[in-house]
């Protein structure tokens, strides 16, 4: 039973019980936003209509570039003038058109009645100003509070968003705070003047799952407490399922589906919505246990890596333990998932295996040979066998080389004839689903998903036995993500490749991995088959990770569920 079936959304309740509220808090009618000539499309937002009521959370979902942020920015008067502008429609706040207001009035709404929280907590705060002052600025602008009262209010706000030591924290500069703390500061800033509407533009995307959960909880409780209208922008259906009362789905600037959360999530109508929901990684639908056959292909044994950061003539450098006592085995054909929060050392281990980082101690045995004991020359033969797929499809391809060359460069470096390598490159590109002409084009002519395919082809050109994939899909949209994961799985099966799959997304790991290793602060805290880890987590940290996954209680409608890869 889904909770959305039984629960009425608050707005429905409000509409029925308080007829006074026939004017919605926010009424967007036919909003269009024009992009400058030469942009990828003429209208960033095309004839958008929706409403937001008090005490309601409206989630706006859609792929990257669908116009979600533009809509929010238009409401805040933040469109990058003069080249991006509102081309039509109206934005009624309590019945009054914001766009027609004089600038001063718009300004008093901004920050006063309508507040906004941004996606990137690292850059959204002024690095040169103490956070207390930054919050106080809002109060100074919109209230008559004297300075001491403002200061007291700032501390109070910081306490409300759950920050420890608020009085002390108010005096800190942003760079001293963690990402989650900064996002809390942002929220405190938005709440400063008790706004009617809170707009949150992907406020949790940049955060780790556990932090994301805390922030989501915070936002939801504050919204409920103050009965604010809230527009929550996200691309994660898990988050939608967690908090939304109503959902608006956008695509290419147009609203394609709009309705109560329960309807959209459980009975999506529009094909695009259906496609989006179908691509959502399903939680817990892990595959069957992998039969480990033969000798292990790779054994990492007590690998340790410490980075020394900073330091100079007079300063001791800071030590960052990125890997400590890391042990791990990978058998042929096995996919090992390495999960953990940002900075836990996942990439460090991955890079150590492919020889990009030299660990301080430990052994990495590949087919019995210790790779770490080898010098540059001795390592070379093993380079072919161990290949890597990188996270960022935009950064991992040299923009100045043709795709064919990019794929062929590896084999050529190992003495393969250039023409033969190019022919083989075309075959590989076809194998990863790109057409023949791809080889002659440059990377910038491809989409993100296509580029990731090129990256995979490059790795395969070396005919590796082990593929280290470092967050190969986290930069991609959900729909594309699914396709790339399928491709990887397909190749793995066809070539019997072993794979080390690094991800921070447990849902993705669940979908593709046979074995899961959970990392935390440079250590592997738990390792086991996917089934074991997901159903009977032994480590408390693993449990908290699982617990933090948003939208766990939501089951993807059966007709949209795909058979998980590898499940028989």
């Amino acid at each position: 039973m889904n909770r959305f079936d039984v629960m009425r959304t608050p707005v429905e309740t409000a509409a029925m019980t308080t007829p006074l509220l026939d004017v919605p808090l926010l009424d967007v009618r036919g909003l269009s936003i024009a992009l400058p000539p030469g942009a990828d499309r003429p209208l960033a937002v095309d004839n958008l209509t929706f409403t937001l009521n008090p005490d309601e959370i409206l989630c706006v979902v859609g792929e990257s570039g669908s116009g979600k942020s533009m809509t929010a920015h238009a409401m805040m008067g933040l469109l990058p003038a003069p080249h991006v502008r509102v081309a039509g429609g109206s934005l009624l706040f309590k019945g009054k058109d914001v766009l027609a207001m004089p600038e001063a009035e718009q300004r008093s709404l901004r920050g006063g009645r309508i507040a906004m929280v941004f996606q990137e907590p690292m850059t959204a705060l002024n690095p040169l100003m103490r956070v207390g002052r930054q919050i106080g600025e809002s109060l100074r602008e919109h209230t008559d509070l004297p300075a001491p009262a403002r200061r007291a209010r700032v501390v109070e706000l910081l306490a409300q968003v759950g920050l420890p030591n608020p009085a002390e924290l108010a005096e800190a500069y942003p760079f001293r705070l963690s990402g989650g703390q900064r996002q809390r500061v942002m929220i405190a800033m938005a709440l400063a003047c008790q706004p009617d509407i809170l707009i949150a533009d992907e406020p949790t995307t940049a955060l780790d799952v556990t932090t994301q959960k805390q922030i989501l909880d915070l936002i939801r409780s504050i919204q409920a407490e103050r009965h604010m209208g809230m527009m929550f922008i996200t691309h994660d259906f898990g988050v939608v399922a967690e908090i939304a009362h109503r959902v608006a789905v956008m695509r290419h600037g147009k609203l394609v589906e709009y309705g109560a959360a329960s309807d959209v999530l459980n009975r999506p109508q529009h094909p695009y919505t259906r496609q989006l929901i179908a691509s959502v990684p399903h939680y817990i639908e892990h595959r069957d246990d992998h039969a480990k056959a033969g000798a292990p292909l790779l054994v990492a044994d007590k690998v340790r890596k410490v980075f020394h950061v900073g330091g100079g003539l007079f300063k001791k450098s800071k030590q960052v333990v990125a890997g400590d006592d890391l042990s791990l085995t990978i058998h042929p054909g096995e996919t090992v998932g390495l999960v953990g929060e940002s900075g836990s050392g996942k990439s460090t281990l991955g890079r150590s295996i492919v020889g990009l980082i030299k660990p301080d101690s430990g052994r990495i045995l590949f087919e019995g040979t210790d790779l770490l004991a080898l010098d540059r020359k001795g390592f070379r033969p093993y380079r072919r066998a161990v290949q890597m797929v990188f996270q960022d499809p935009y950064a991992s391809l040299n923009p100045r080389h043709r795709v064919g060359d990019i794929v062929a460069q590896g084999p050529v470096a190992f003495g393969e004839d250039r023409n033969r390598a190019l022919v083989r490159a075309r075959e590989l590109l076809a194998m990863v689903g790109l057409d023949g002409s791809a080889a002659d084009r440059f990377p910038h002519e491809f989409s993100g998903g296509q580029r990731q395919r090129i990256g995979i082809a490059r790795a395969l050109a070396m005919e590796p036995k082990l593929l280290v994939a470092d967050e190969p899909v986290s930069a991609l949209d959900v729909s594309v993500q699914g396709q790339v994961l399928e491709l990887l799985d397909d190749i793995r099966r066809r070539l019997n490749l072993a794979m080390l799959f690094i991800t921070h997304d447990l849902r993705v790991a669940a979908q593709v991995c046979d074995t899961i290793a959970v990392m935390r602060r440079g250590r592997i805290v738990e390792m086991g088959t996917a089934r074991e880890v997901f159903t009977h987590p032994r480590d408390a940290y693993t449990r908290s990770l699982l617990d933090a996954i948003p939208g766990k209680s939501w089951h993807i409608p059966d007709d949209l569920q795909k058979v998980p890869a590898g499940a028989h």
Partner: protein
Amino acid sequence: MLGFAQLFASRLVKAAAILIAIVVMNFFLVHAAPGDPAMVMAGEAGAADEKFVAQLREQFGLDRPLYEQLGTYVGKIVQGDLGFSYRQQRPVWDILAERLPATLVLTLTAFLLALAAGVALGTLAAVAVGTWADSAITVLALLAYATPIYWIGLMLSLLFSIQLGWLPAFGYETIGAGYTGLAHVADVAVHLILPVITLALFYMASYARLTRASMLEVRGLDFVKTAKAKGLTQSRIVTRHVLRNAILPVITVAGIQAGQLVGGSILIETVFAWPGIGRLAFEAVLQRDYQVLLGIFLVTSIMVILFNILTDILYGLVDPRIQVSQ
């Protein structure tokens, strides 16, 4: 504040290392220079014979082995003795000390003017981006940037002194006027106008360009969006958020240039007959008085180092991140 002291100490050690390198380089440059100062002096006396030249060589220690001379040189520099100008028959330091104040007055005034005007103009242009005011400032800055500064100086003195007769064309004060007190200050100030404007123009142009570009860049950063979303007024956003962040690269560049300003002042002092070390450098070049030239070289390098340290301190005061990340 411990971090700050450490930062300072490490800067000093680095500065000392650089200075030693420069001193040694100086020594070898002197010896790479062709000719023999004793010969020149002999020549200037109107006649020369072997005995005279030999006496002079002995007097200047030029007859000693090279390593001994290097030792003597470094030893003297350490004691603040920059050597002896054979041409002027005076210690280099005395000559420099006499000229330094005039240069400092000129360069510091020009620097402060350039910084204030440059940042103001750059801010104005960035705020009014796309308007005629922006275009005018941009074009002017570009022109000032592209024009040789000695030529601007010549043209200004051609116009304001020779054609219009409004301002003195050269010099530090009215010779022999014997002004004292305030009248003297006013006299010097009038003489300062043209050289200061000339020297300031180029630097003003670069600060204006830099400020404008930096403001436009900062303007697009997320925290400015945050400030706008708070409903702050435009002027508060510009002064509190944009300018403060945009000024950081300006400080960096200004710090580098403040030291280099002395180099620029060689040209200005030449054009305006300003009796500072720049002018001295020009005279030293003409007479190839290497001792003086290298003394100037050392002193200006020290000034660069001092300005660099000052910049670091200033930067540390403005940007709270520095003390930690350093």
